[in-house]
C-alpha cells in the first residue's frame, strides 16, 4: 500500500536523538542566502549531500499541477557545462549514487558518496541550481517518462487511485488537493516555457537548504560550500499566497469504482500541523494519538480491529506533523471477507469515540514514549534519514531545531491533551470518507496455479 508507506514515513518524522552523545548540527548561511547544515557522523567514511528547494506540488496553481515533479526530472537533463545524463554519469564514476524526490512541500536532490568525493557533488549541484538547460527535445521524452510513472504509481494501483480522489474531495481550496505527480491533462499540457518560469521562480540559493551528514568536518564543508555555491546569485523570491482551507461544513463521502479485488475505506479529519497549530502541544498530542492507534502491533487498530474484533485484514492511521499546511489525520483499512466497508467505518469511528470518552492509560502512553526514544537511536544508523529530517523541517519553515526537541515534546504529552485534540478535531463535520468499490477485472485471465 503506497499510501500507507507514505503515512508511516511521515509518522516517523521528525525524530532526533535525545542521547547525550548525539552529534550536533552546525549551521551557516552564505551571503547569497543559502542555508548550509552539517551533521558530523564519523561511524563510516561516507557522506550524504542533499539540496532541498522550497517548492513542491502545494506551490502549484491549477493547470500546471505536477510541474515541480516534472522539473525534478529535467534537472538531470544538462546545463551549459554538462550534457544531459552527465550529472549521473559523473556521480557514478565517483562511486556515488544520486536521485531526487518531490513532495507536496519540497523538491530534494541527493548524492551518497565516499566522504572524500563531496566536492564532486557540490560542483554539480551548484551548477544546476542556476544554469539548467531546458531543451524541448529532452522535455518531450521526459514527459513520456513522467506519464509512465503516473500510470505505474497511480492509474494501475486501486488504492493509490482511491487516495488521489480522496484528497481531491477532502480539500476544497488547499493545494494538498492535487496529486504530487499532477493531473493527467496538466502533465500533457506543460510547455518548456512553463518549466523555465518555474525554474526561474524557485531555484535560487536563497530558496534552498544544503544538508550534509557524514564523515566530514563542518568547517571544511562550509568552506567548500562557499567555494561552489557562494558565487551564485540570489533571486527575488515572492512569498506564497496562504490558500488557507475554508471551513468544512459537514461530512463528505465519495466512492471510487475501479477494477480491484479488495474493498477499502479511508477516513480523513482536518487537523492542524505543527506549523499551523495555534498551540504546538496540539500537534504533538495528535502525533501521540496516531501512535495510540497505529504505533505497532500492540497499538489499538491491530489489537482491537485486526485481532480482537477481526473486522479488518489491515488497518492504519497517520498524521502529517511536519506538513507546511493544515492536513488530514487519516485512517485506512481493508475489511475481512464478509464484512462491509460500512461496518469497518463504524468500527474505526468507535475507536475515535473511545479516544474522546476515555483517557489513554499510563502504560499505553509509556509504550509510545519508549518507542519514540528508541527510534531516536535507531534513526542514527542512517545518515540519509538524519539528513531528510533536517531538510524537511527547514523546507516547511519549522526549522531543523525541531528535530532536537521532538522526543522531549512527545514525552510532555498528557492523556488529557490526547482526549482534548480528539474532541476538538476528530469530528464528523471535519471528516471525509472514501470507499474503494471493487469492480470486476474484465479481461483478466485466471492466473492461479493449482497443486
Amino acid at each position: 500500500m503506497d499510501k500507507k508507506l507514505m503515512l508511516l514515513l511521515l509518522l516517523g518524522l521528525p525524530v532526533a536523538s535525545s542521547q547525550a552523545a548525539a552529534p550536533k548540527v552546525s549551521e551557516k548561511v552564505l551571503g547569497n542566502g543559502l542555508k548550509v547544515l552539517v551533521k558530523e557522523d564519523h561511524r563510516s567514511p561516507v557522506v550524504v549531500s542533499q539540496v532541498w528547494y522550497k517548492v513542491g506540488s502545494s506551490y502549484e496553481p491549477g493547470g500546471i499541477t505536477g510541474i515541480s515533479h516534472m522539473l525534478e526530472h529535467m534537472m538531470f537533463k544538462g546545463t551549459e557545462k554538462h550534457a544531459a545524463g552527465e550529472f549521473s554519469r559523473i556521480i557514478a564514476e565517483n562511486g556515488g549514487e544520486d536521485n531526487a524526490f518531490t513532495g507536496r512541500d519540497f523538491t530534494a536532490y541527493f548524492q551518497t558518496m565516499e566522504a572524500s568525493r563531496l566536492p564532486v557533488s557540490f560542483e554539480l549541484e551548484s551548477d544546476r541550481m542556476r544554469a539548467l538547460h531546458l531543451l524541448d527535445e529532452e522535455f518531450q521524452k521526459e514527459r513520456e517518462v513522467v506519464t509512465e510513472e503516473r500510470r505505474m504509481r497511480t492509474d494501475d494501483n486501486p488504492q493509490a487511485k482511491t487516495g488521489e480522489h480522496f484528497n481531491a474531495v477532502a480539500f476544497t481550496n488547499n493545494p494538498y488537493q492535487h496529486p504530487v505527480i499532477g493531473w493527467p491533462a496538466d502533465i500533457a499540457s506543460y510547455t518548456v516555457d512553463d518549466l523555465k518560469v518555474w525554474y526561474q521562480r524557485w531555484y535560487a540559493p536563497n530558496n534552498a537548504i544544503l544538508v550534509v551528514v557524514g564523515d566530514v568536518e563542518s568547517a571544511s564543508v562550509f568552506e567548500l560550500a562557499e567555494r561552489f555555491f557562494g558565487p551564485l546569485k540570489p533571486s527575488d523570491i515572492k512569498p506564497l499566497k496562504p490558500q488557507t482551507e475554508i471551513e468544512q461544513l459537514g461530512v463528505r463521502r465519495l466512492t471510487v469504482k475501479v477494477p480491484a479485488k479488495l474493498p477499502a475505506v479511508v477516513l480523513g479529519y482536518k487537523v492542524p500541523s505543527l506549523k499551523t497549530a495555534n498551540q504546538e502541544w496540539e500537534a504533538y498530542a495528535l502525533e501521540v494519538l496516531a501512535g495510540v492507534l497505529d504505533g505497532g502491533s500492540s497499538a489499538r487498530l491491530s489489537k482491537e480491529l485486526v485481532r480482537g474484533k477481526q473486522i479488518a485484514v489491515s488497518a492504519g492511521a497517520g498524521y502529517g506533523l511536519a506538513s507546511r499546511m493544515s492536513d488530514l489525520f487519516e485512517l485506512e483499512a481493508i475489511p475481512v471477507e464478509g464484512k462491509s466497508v460500512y461496518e469497518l467505518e463504524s468500527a474505526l469511528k468507535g475507536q475515535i469515540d473511545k479516544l474522546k470518552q476515555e483517557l489513554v492509560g499510563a502504560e499505553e502512553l509509556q509504550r509510545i514514549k519508549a518507542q519514540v526514544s528508541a527510534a531516536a537511536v535507531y534513526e542514527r544508523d542512517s545518515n540519509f534519514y538524519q539528513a531528510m529530517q533536517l531538510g524537511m523541517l527547514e523546507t516547511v519553515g519549522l526549522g531543523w531545531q525541531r528535530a532536537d526537541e521532538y522526543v522531549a515534546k512527545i514525552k510532555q504529552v498528557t492523556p488529557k491533551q490526547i482526549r482534548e485534540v480528539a474532541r476538538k478535531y476528530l469530528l464528523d463535520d471535519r471528516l471525509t470518507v472514501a470507499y474503494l468499490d471493487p469492480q470486476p477485472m474484465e479481461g483478466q485471465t485466471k492466473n492461479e496455479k493449482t497443486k
Partner: protein
Amino acid sequence: MRFYLYGFMLLMGCQPLWAAAKIDHWQTKQGSRVYYVQTEGLPMVDIRVTFDAGSARDGDQFGVAALTAGMLDTGAGNWDADTVAERFESIGAEFSAGSSMDTATLSLRTLTEKPLFDKALETMEVILVQPRFAAPDFQREKKRTLAAIKQQEESPGAVASIAFYKALYGSHPYAHPESGTLASVGALSADDLKRFYQRHYVAANAQVVIVGELSKQQAEQAAEKLMAGLPVGQKPAALPEVAMPAHGGNTHLPFPSAQTHILVGMPGISRKDPDYYDLYVGNHILGGGGLVSKLFKEIRENRGLAYSVSSAFVPLLKPGPFLVSLQTRNDQTQQALSVLHQTLADFIANGPTEVELLAAKKNITGGFALRFDTNKELANYASMIGFYDMPLDYLDTFRNKIETVTAKSVTDALKRHLDPALFQTITVGQGGK
C-alpha cells in the same frame, strides 16, 4: 576535473586506512552458526535468526513456509499475540518474522541497555522455541494471507512476477508464489504449520547474526540463549537442481491496466557460482547501475518508453533468475519489447566496451563503503555470507575481485549463462499481441 584535487585534500577524513568490517564466526553448542560484527557509537543491536525454511521448502503445500514464519509472533509460550507485541513495543524494540524463497528469518532490533535487551531477547527466544500456532490465530492469519493473495491479483506487476517464476522454473520449488495460492493456502491446517516448524526450525538448520554494540561475550551468551531450546535436528536435503527451459516462451495475460508489465529472463546463477563477479559487473552495465545503465539509456532516456527499467541476477541456493523488467503504455509494448530484446542480444553477443567496464568498476569500487555504512546493511551482508556459506572475507576481497574482471571475462560469462533462445517473456496488460 579541476575541482577534484583540492577538494580531496580538504576533506580527507581522519581515517585514511579503513578496512571492511570484521565478521567473527563460531558455532553454538548445538551447532548453529553465529556471525557477529561489533559496531560502536550507537547503543543498539540487530539480531537475525535465519533458517533454510523458505518457500522452496513448501513441498506441495504452497504457502506453508510463509504462513509459518508469519504466525510465529501471534502467540508463544504463555503469551498471546497482544502480550508478545506489548513485550517488544513497551521497550521500543522492533521485531518481525518473514520468509523468502530460500529463507525464513526472525529479526530483532533493540537497545542494548541491559533490562531492555534482556526482555527483548527472552521474548524472541520464546517465539523461536514455543510458538503456539493456536487455532483461532491460525484462522485469522490464514484469512489475512488469502486477502493478501487477492490483493496481488489486482496488481499487474505481482501477476507478471508470479507468471514469470512459473515459466522459468516449471516444477522446481522456486516456481510457485511465496505466499501460496488461494487454493493451497485454503487447504492448510494449523497442524501443517506445526509440522513444518518442527522439521525446519531446528538448531542444525539455524544461523544467528548479531550486529551492534555488544561485546563478543554478550554475543556468545545471546546466541546460546536463543538456540538452547531448539532441538538439534538436521538440515533439510539439498534442493533439486534447476532444469533450464527447453525453449523460449511467451506468455501474455490480459489485464485491465493502462500499462503492460514486461518481464524477460531465464534461470541465472547460484550464490556460489564462480562467474558471480563477472556477471555482477556485466549486469551493472546492462541494467543494474541505477540512472546510467544501458537499458536505462535505451528505454528511458533515449525513447521515454518507461519510468522504471532494470535488470538483475538474483543468486539463490540454486540458480535464481536473471530478469529484465519494465512497464510501458499498452500500445508501446511491442516497441519496448523489441528495444529490450535488441539491447540484451547485443550485450550478450558483444559484451561491454572498455569505457563501460572502467566506468562500472569505478562506480562499484569507489562506492564500496556505501554498501555497509549502516548496522542494517552489515546485518544483511553477514546474513548473506552466512546463509550462502561465503568466505568471511567476502567484503575485504570484493574490490579486488571486481578489479580482476575484464571485458572478455564478462562477455564469456554472459555467453555461458544467458541464451536469448531460452528467454521467457511475460506480458501482463492490454498490449500483449
